[in-house]
């Protein structure tokens, strides 16, 4: 009710790099663990938040306008809940949150977080914006080129492990074996990344065949399961807390979850910088830089795909340039807010790869998803009459039984 004056907020200073622990919200367990290690290897002290309970949601409801999107509520709730837990010295922590700068509400999470911190008596806690568009800079946290390149490795490796894991877990003969193997490889990678030297891409790439070999060796049942794609707003798509543990639910219903990678989202963001100039004009330089980044990322994804293909056991993801080309059959590349055209094309991509059953997740009231999610299902069905898509809204007040019931309807109609 009472609002704070317009005022300044604490910034993350260079000194704080030494004194403060940076807390990161959780979204993708594998990726974020790897990214955390990269940040640490550049001299930051970071910690991933793993608190996941009803208290997180309640904290979010207390601190964020309840009509704000569910991801904001969860991320902010998770952070405030962590600060209140007593585990951290509020004078020695900082928070990090991503900011895309796009036209959807998500660019405002950081401001909502700052408001919430102040209201909860944590006004001294600085918030770092992780973004690539020059918004909201912090003197103590600089994204350098070497760091960005290595974060890219973490994303690629994260996608790789997630992909293979999803293809193994539903079929494992001994429950828990896949997860254990993921953990073992994570440990190996993390150890190799912590020797102080910069992470080497060459060494990382060399791991692909070994990892593939290990996962292929897991004893499997050989049964045939329905594959179900998960697309949607990035946070509820990936975060188990955001989607009420959707992957686990699908597994328990005897399906194989297929989750498109994070690389696609990164490439989508980069590509938008190129598309913007095409549509509206603008600086050549920005567009060029984006072009270079795009090619770099694509090359990294290609290496991963090649490795999977060479090994020949698992299904590789669609190379992004193909995904990108596919988009134009469904929606314009100009739709760039939120997950934009990527969300639509992810559904299309899944279907092209034979995954006809899809859960399209979105926070209740998500603006971009009216257009690119629910708004495009009809278009996709026109082109693929056998597509079996269910749109599920996530919200603190939404009934889980209702969500599951709708997913079960989709599963009842599912085909291989």
């Amino acid at each position, binding site marked *: 009710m009472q*609002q704070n004056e317009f005022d300044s907020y604490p910034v993350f200073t260079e000194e704080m790099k030494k004194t403060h622990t940076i807390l990161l919200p959780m979204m993708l367990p594998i990726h974020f663990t790897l990214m955390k290690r990269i940040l640490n290897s550049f001299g930051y002290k970071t910690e991933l938040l793993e608190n996941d309970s009803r208290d997180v949601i309640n904290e979010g*409801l207390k601190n964020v306008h*309840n009509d704000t999107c569910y991801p904001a509520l969860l991320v902010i709730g998770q952070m405030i809940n962590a600060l209140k837990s007593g585990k951290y010295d509020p004078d020695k922590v900082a928070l990090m949150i991503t900011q895309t700068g796009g*036209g959807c*509400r998500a660019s405002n999470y950081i401001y909502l977080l700052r408001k919430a911190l102040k209201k909860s008596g944590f006004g001294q806690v600085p918030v770092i914006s992780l973004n690539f568009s020059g918004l909201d800079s912090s003197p103590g946290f600089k994204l350098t080129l070497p760091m960005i390149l290595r974060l890219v490795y973490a994303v690629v490796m994260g996608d790789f492990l997630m992909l293979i894991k999803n293809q193994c877990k539903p079929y494992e003969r001994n429950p828990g074996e896949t997860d254990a193997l993921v953990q073992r490889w994570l440990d190996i990678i993390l150890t190799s990344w912590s020797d102080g030297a910069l992470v080497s891409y060459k060494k990382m790439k060399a791991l692909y065949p070994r990892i593939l070999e290990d996962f292929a060796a897991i004893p499997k049942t050989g049964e045939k399961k329905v594959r179900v794609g998960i697309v949607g707003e990035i946070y509820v798509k990936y975060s188990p807390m955001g989607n009420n543990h959707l992957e686990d639910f699908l597994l328990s219903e005897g399906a194989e979850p297929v989750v498109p990678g994070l690389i696609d989202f990164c490439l989508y963001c980069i590509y938008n910088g190129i598309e913007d100039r095409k549509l509206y004009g603008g600086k050549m330089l920005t567009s060029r830089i984006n072009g270079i980044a795009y090619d770099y990322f694509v090359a990294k994804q290609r290496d991963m795909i090649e490795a999977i293909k060479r090994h020949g056991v698992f299904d590789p993801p669609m190379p992004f340039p193909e995904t990108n080309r596919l988009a134009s059959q469904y929606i314009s590349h100009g739709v760039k807010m939120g997950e934009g055209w990527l969300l639509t094309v992810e559904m299309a991509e899944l279907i092209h790869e034979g995954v006809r059953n899809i859960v399209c997740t979105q926070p209740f009231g998500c603006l971009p998803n009216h257009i690119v999610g629910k708004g495009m299902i009809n278009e996709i069905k026109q082109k693929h009459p056998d597509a079996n898509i269910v749109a599920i809204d996530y919200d603190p007040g939404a009934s889980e039984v209702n969500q599951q019931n709708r997913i079960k309807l989709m599963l009842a109609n599912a085909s291989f």
Partner: protein
Amino acid sequence: MSLSVGIDIGSTTVKVVVMDDGVITMKHYERHFSQVRQKTAEMLRLARGAIGERAFTVAISGSAGFGVAKAAGLPFIQEVFATGEAVRHSGEAIDIVIELGGEDAKILFLTGGLEERMNGTCAGGTGAFIDQMATLLDVTTDELDQLSLRAQRLYPIASRCGVFAKSDIQPLLNQGAAKEDIAASIFQAVVDQTITGLAQGRRIEGKIAFLGGPLHFFKGLQKRFVETLHLSPENALFPDLGQYSVAIGSAVFSEQSAEQLTFDELLTRVEDTANEVHSARYLEPLFADEDDYEAFVERHRRATVPERAIESYEGNAYLGIDCGSTTTKVVLISQQAELLYQYYGSNRGNPVDIIKEQLQQVWRLCGGRVNIRASVCTGYGEELIKNAFGIDAGIVETMAHFKAARFFCPNVDFILDIGGQDIKCFQVKNDSIDSIMLNEACSSGCGSFIETFARSMGYEIAEFSQKGIFSQYPVDLGSRCTVFMNSSVKQAQKEGAGVEDISAGLSMSVVKNAIYKVIRAHSADELGEHIVVQGGTFYNDAVLRSFEKEIGRDVIRPTIAGLMGAYGAALYGRELELAETATMRPDQLAAFTHTSKAAQCGLCTNHCNLTVNTFSGNRRFISGNKCERPLGVGKAKELPNLYAYKMDRIRNLKSTPGRRGRIGIPLGLAMFENLPFWHAFFEELGIETVLSDVSSTELYGKGRYTIPSDTACYPAKLMHGHIESLFEKGVDTIFYPCLTYNFDEHKGDNHYNCPVVAYYAELMRANITKLQTVRFLYPYFGLHRPKDFEKKAYQYFKGYYTDLTQREVSAAAKKAYAAYYAWQDDLKAEGARAIAYARANGLQMVVLAGRPYHIDPEINHGIDRLLSSFGIVVLTEDAVADLVEPQKVNVLNQWTYHARLYNAAKYCTMHDDTELVQLVSFGCGIDAITTDEVRAILERGGKLYTQLKIDEINNLGAVKIRIRSLLGAVEERRRRAKRRDA
């Protein structure tokens, strides 16, 4: 010979069928009152005779059946899929199945591409909604059905969800609309909701089977479906066994199952599940023990107002009437404000009769000794009661509640009132109202929800709330709105929660809604030391305790919590210092009659639905109007109203036939801002622009079936109707561009459009299949870069108009920009004129701050004219946004339209005679951010913040209260300031 059993456990009922070789040999249907497992076992026993000792197959279905099936290790089949099985089994050539249940609505398209769909989150609780509405009308569901069949006309009822529908129905009741018409309108809302939510671009036509309980039992609902979908009798099937379809489908499906069971085996398995313990999300109990509760009761017992037996009193008295949304309250107070008489009761859907009885009673008690000097009425029914019974004055309910609380506790810091429909809060500082917070549309009806829910479970409210007091495991039911809460209740019931736990859980949910959605409080300290809570809902000790627990502070609940509105009204009556009341006397009351008739006003394009009340003595009272015109008081001098001005200018934008044909433009969303631009652009190119009709409910109805996402905002959903309108006009080209960026007005950090405005064209292309039959142009343009636009526009349009030249397009672009800026300048000049007029005449001004498309009369529902009728000069946000320096805000200021809001708010803080009212469309995610900022700017400048959430909801009852509250508070502040100065 195969024997099979189908069990359908839905959200409210259990259905069991036994099929012998495809023929039903036994069927049974009963409500389970959340005793899911016990009831299922009980009903199975009834099937014993039909089954005997034979082995059979079985399958369970239904939203509550999942848990049972899992626990019992029996096959489960999703209910919609089961319906499909049943229909396939019947062998009938059916194209579409519509099935409504207690909680969910489903549609199955069986031909032309199989699709099976269920309602979205907002549209939950179909059957439960009908139950609740019946309770609201104080009739049984059967009576509701009977009433609906005798309806003369339909009122437009918001169909997005149960909460919004209720917001339209409640005021209708209070205005005296006929129950028959309301009943039919309720069913129509269900029909509209089903079509909007489930059609999603597919036509509902062909042979349609209607299944499920509500569609089986309610003839009125059947009728509404048949009429709305224009179905011929042979195409509308209402099978006799409609309510058993899921159970039948389950039985059919079970035949594929390998497992054969005997009756005893099945019964044992189901019975065993009944003892299972379930884990839901529990909250802390309300009270630690009996003593804790006793102390609580004792503490609150002390908060009383002085009473006095009327028999012993002689002298002046003042009558206060609070005709609320669900209850009617009457008090009579003495000169010293002692309570002489009190009444509190449900208005049973007809407040007039109750007030009549009450007045007779009061007069009787007054005898000759007590002299009523004034009577004052407040609440939703204020106008009606005032006119019916010659009540002396009316007072807006917020002010009445405020007066009462202040009188009761002079040093009060914070007042919270939870009534049946509304939640009102006041922060008091320096002896005056510092801020008023009223619930927005989604939080409506929280108070009465507990009561209607209790009754649907077969409890009286007092008993129901008492049950919650000692619940050990209150369930967490969420706080968004009552529709979501209702769904959560169903979930909790399925998981085995008892009535106690639900009662306590609901109390907490309602309180959390008030604290986190209405008050937006973070800690008790923000509210202050002395907190008074009132309103009928606080009679519920569970609610009161939940509130104290949630904010962590003891509060004061007057023992007359529910009467505070009436008490405040009586206090106001005392201030009036009238010699004698004009209230109807006993003899007149005896002859009092009341009839009501629905009518439609034809005096302007708004076509308001009026209710004409006729009282004895041929007195008439008209309600439902949005302006003064139908009241026949003559056309008042029209005050400057920039909403009307802008709309008129748009309407008068004429286009001339040109050499390059016609282009259709839907008049919605960004077009309210950019039309002058495109109009000039196409005019210069020799293309005639053809506009769709101005929005209306009918226009909305035409496009409803192509809406893919029902939770989008109403302005966006109207676009579907506009496209239909353009088709009716026979255009072969339709233009609606995608605009990621808006004009850069240099007010913020960026200049985006919101995602919906920016890309709605993409959605229309993908969902309105008809658009494939015309040329639908939806180019991406950046109007913020004029030079680039000239080139990009040429490249784009030459593909369609091959004879175009760059030079032509450049010239047209220049004209377009000039036209746009001239339009904006004109608007600002008109704004300046309006301000000058208001100042010269000493009139109050209100900036009705929204988006450009809020000038659409179907979107704002005539709120601008309502303000005019209060003698207010209405300004728009864009008319004043340039009068101040760009605002710095605490959020990322990156949307052009929204940046104007911040500036407009700043402007209001600089002028004593200007207030701001923010219009927010339901579903506008971005306004979750702007509303907090606009409020912050206003409150920092010492101004009150008022938000009106608008959607399909037609009735302005709630809006009126908010506006009058604002005006009342401003008035009160001015009075106090004057007094301080003097």
